[in-house]
């Protein structure tokens, strides 16, 4: 049901207007990348991309296509701003975070352009809240230069099987080692913690393995602290694609189905850990 607008000026002034009948379709996705306080929003005619980065080694992107929104209009080619993600999420869930069946919070997001705050109009059960969040100068986001032509190994797994493995990862290990190979062990997650090493192997013919395209044996290590936040995205998703390129850069792509059955994507890019020591056998 379209939200009646309470705008001070005419709608034409806004460079970006996006409306959702169910604000959770946005907030759930954003929670999955909320490992840092600030996020960069990039809106184009395709939709919105929200980026969060950590230590110049990790980048998470959430893509919410224009089709997901009930209303989506953008007056410029691209609109970019930086905003406090924690505050934004607090506003999106201002009527309470938990899902009550049948009750949804409607959202209208408006942005007037550079220097203006991001306005959120939220409505639930006849109660309307207007939030204005200050925006900041957008920062250059990292370009991991990860293109499909450089991809050496790729697997697509059903998230269910990976979820348990991730939740059981030995957190005393500083790194998570990912081995992908056309031969055994095919796909292996390894940790090296205080008590010893642990490996979780997925065979290429497992029911959980939807796609297995590994051309070369690769073993890369990534800092556990960087990858741990991706567990949230994993728990939301139904499928995950794991790819590594010739530099050992990791791309994790999560397919998330929202409340209305629409598909959104979350992507994590991670640099390999520089100090790659001898691998544990």
């Amino acid at each position, binding site marked *: 049901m379209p939200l009646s607008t309470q705008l001070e000026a005419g709608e034409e002034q806004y460079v970006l207007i996006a409306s959702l009948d169910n604000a959770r379709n946005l907030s759930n996705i954003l929670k999955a990348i909320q490992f840092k306080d600030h996020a960069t929003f990039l809106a184009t005619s395709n939709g919105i991309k929200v980026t969060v980065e950590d230590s110049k080694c990790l980048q998470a992107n959430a893509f919410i296509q224009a089709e997901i929104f009930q209303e989506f209009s953008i007056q410029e080619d691209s609109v970019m701003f930086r905003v406090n993600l924690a505050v934004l999420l607090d506003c999106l869930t201002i009527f309470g975070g938990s899902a009550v069946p049948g009750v949804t919070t409607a959202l209208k997001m408006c942005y007037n352009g550079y220097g203006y705050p991001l306005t959120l109009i939220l409505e639930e059960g006849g109660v309307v809240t207007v939030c204005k969040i200050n925006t900041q100068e957008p920062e250059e986001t990292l370009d991991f230069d990860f293109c499909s032509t450089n991809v050496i190994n790729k697997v697509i797994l059903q998230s269910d099987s990976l979820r*348990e493995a991730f939740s*059981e990862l*030995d957190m005393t290990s500083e790194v998570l080692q990912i081995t992908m190979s056309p031969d055994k062990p095919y796909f292996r997650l390894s940790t090296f913690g205080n*008590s010893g*090493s642990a*490996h979780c192997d997925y065979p290429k013919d*497992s029911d959980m393995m939807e796609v297995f395209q590994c051309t070369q044996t690769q073993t890369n290590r990534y800092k556990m602290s960087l990858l741990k936040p991706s567990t949230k995205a994993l728990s939301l998703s139904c499928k995950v694609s794991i790819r590594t390129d010739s530099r050992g850069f990791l791309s994790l792509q999560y397919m998330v189905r929202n409340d209305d059955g629409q598909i959104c994507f979350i992507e994590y890019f991670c640099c390999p850990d520089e100090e790659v020591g001898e691998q544990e056998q």
Partner: protein
Amino acid sequence: MRCVVATSNVKVLGKAVHSLSRIGDELYFEPLSSGLALRCVNSSRSAYGCFLFTPLFFQHYDSGAPPGGLEDSGFRCKMGMKSVQTVFKSLSSLDKTVEKCEIDLNPGGNRLVFQLHCKYGITKTHNLSFQESESLQPVFQKDGYANVLRAQPRLLADTVVHFPPSLEEVNVTVSGERVQFRNHLEDEQDASKMMLTEMSLDADEFESFQVREETGITFCLKELRGLLSFAESSGLPLSMYFDQPGRPVVFGLDDPVLEVNFVLATLSDEETTTHRERNRSRPPQADTSHDDFLSDDMDSYMIAMETSAVGGAEAQPCSTGSDHRREREPVSAACSSGSKQQRGRESGSEEEEEEEEEELPGTPPQKRFRSLFFGSVLSPYSQGANQTLRNQEVLAEASDSDPEEQEEETAKK
């Protein structure tokens, strides 16, 4: 050494590990010809738990012993409890996802490999480091007890649920017809300010109620809870063996494929009666001073932990040298509440703790258990009576014992 555990038993193994984790920080792993023994003892040696999985429990069991079935392989080790718990982390999904669990010693002999074969072909391998250790075997014999109660674990679980989780010690008094559970009060606690909980169970609520001596004992509830949760899930009847205060209480579960024993220290008589504010079932005895731990009666109440006598390994019990001077307090003496029972027993225990190479906490535990474990009875695992007596070691060692006599170092590679 290789064991394979099939589906539903993997969860039992996991639960056993979790219930032992309530006792202490290290899991002792010993594959015997009679089965796999998982043991744990707490830092003050006042609680001990053992799960013995017979070969029938396994799909495949090879203890690594030479064929003939007469000798044991001699391999025994201990691992950090947390590490083993990690293998069996998500208990609830274990029976749904795990098809098989294999435990092997790796070819290099320096890692114990737990491999879980799960659904969809997924394999989880844990290579755990371990320390070679001496055998952890308390000396006790269930046959020697005057009182034996047996009940469905549900009964005891329902009883202890009424006591607050923070309750440390519980007092159990038994007469011919009933048994009473009470929370135990420290003597410095004023009874009028504390909540007193008392539960009474009739003899007929028990599967078996054999009381030859009307008595009351006090022991620590915390460590028992681990056993109770395991027992409840297994549905096996739980037996309780006890008599005089001071003599440890034994809780056991028996099953064709599994034998579980938890041995807990009890407060000795002098302490229980002087601390009682009111007259309970026992008339107060002569007010023996707390300081009187030099009495000869201590002899029979010292912990005797049998060393790994077989095979001539020189391994010593975890903590002490062979000090036979009985006037030294037993380790469990360490469990006295810090402020009041200062003295030699504290220093004895701290030394004992310092000598141990394991990571014992620096401060002695707050419990007041003094004398604990057992004494003259034979270990069920001992090779012979003579060996047991010869090898009985006092756990709390003399302050002037030479640290070099600690053979723990040599026992470990």
